[in-house]
């Protein structure tokens, strides 16, 4: 899979936009006093980093980044914040006055996404089925890095059991 060194204009623009967004949200993550808002900025940083991985032709890694980091790690952090002492500082509004804004955002997202989906599904093949990233990563995982792959599964099992033991309720009290 050749690395296209002739960079297109759009690639450069998207890289600079994503880099600026990543740095802005990273600075917000480390400077916001309210921990809940810092977690939101943290999730945004991870999301835009996943977008940057798409530019680097790492589609599978981008999806795993969003799935694992944004979908599990950030959400788990929000749970832990809710369970610890930061509750008094949070100002979670229960009002419904942002319903109009929600509808507006959903409409904008639909108007932006639906033409793209229609255009993509009009072509027959989007991804090269024989020479893409998942293919090459799969080859490496089961040839060169097979031992590390298996040991990672043991590590995940150990972490699962360890987290339950550490954070579980004490029966003795």
């Amino acid at each position, binding site marked *: 899979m*050749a*690395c296209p060194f002739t960079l297109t204009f759009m690639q*450069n623009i998207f890289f600079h936009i994503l880099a600026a967004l990543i740095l802005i949200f990273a600075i917000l993550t480390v400077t916001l006093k309210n*921990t809940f808002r810092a977690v939101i900025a943290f999730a945004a940083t991870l999301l835009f980093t996943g977008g940057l991985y798409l530019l680097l032709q790492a589609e599978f890694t981008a999806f795993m*980044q969003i799935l*694992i980091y944004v979908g599990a790690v950030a959400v*788990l952090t929000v749970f*832990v914040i809710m369970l610890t002492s930061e509750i008094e500082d949070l100002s979670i509004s229960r009002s419904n006055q942002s319903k109009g804004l929600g509808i507006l955002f959903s409409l904008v997202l639909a108007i932006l996404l639906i033409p793209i989906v229609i255009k993509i599904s009009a072509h027959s093949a989007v991804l090269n089925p024989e020479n893409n990233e998942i293919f090459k990563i799969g080859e490496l995982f089961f040839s060169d890095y097979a031992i590390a792959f298996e040991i990672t599964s043991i590590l995940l099992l150990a972490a699962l059991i360890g987290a339950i033991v550490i*954070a579980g309720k004490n029966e003795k009290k």
Partner: protein
Amino acid sequence: MTLQNLLILSTLLFIIGLYGVLTRRSLIQMYMAIELMFNAVNINFLSFAYFNGSEINFKGHVFVLFIITVAAVEAAVGLALILAIYRRSNTIEADKLTNLKH
């Protein structure tokens, strides 16, 4: 999107994470800054994998996946530890956790 620009981005992200670890008081805020440093390293690996002669070297991608997995493991164990600390001392501020101090 040159290699130089990507490395500058990853260095800046790493420095921001380092600043967060050194300056923040809550354990969860420190943890998020550590995760920012992980992401900076991931961008570094992927950019070197991309700019690798004429072919993309996918070993960088494999290592990034391992880093993401280990970061998820660290999230589980670290946040469980934070919960245990909170249950014991009723605080998660690094200044107030002075049990090990002489």
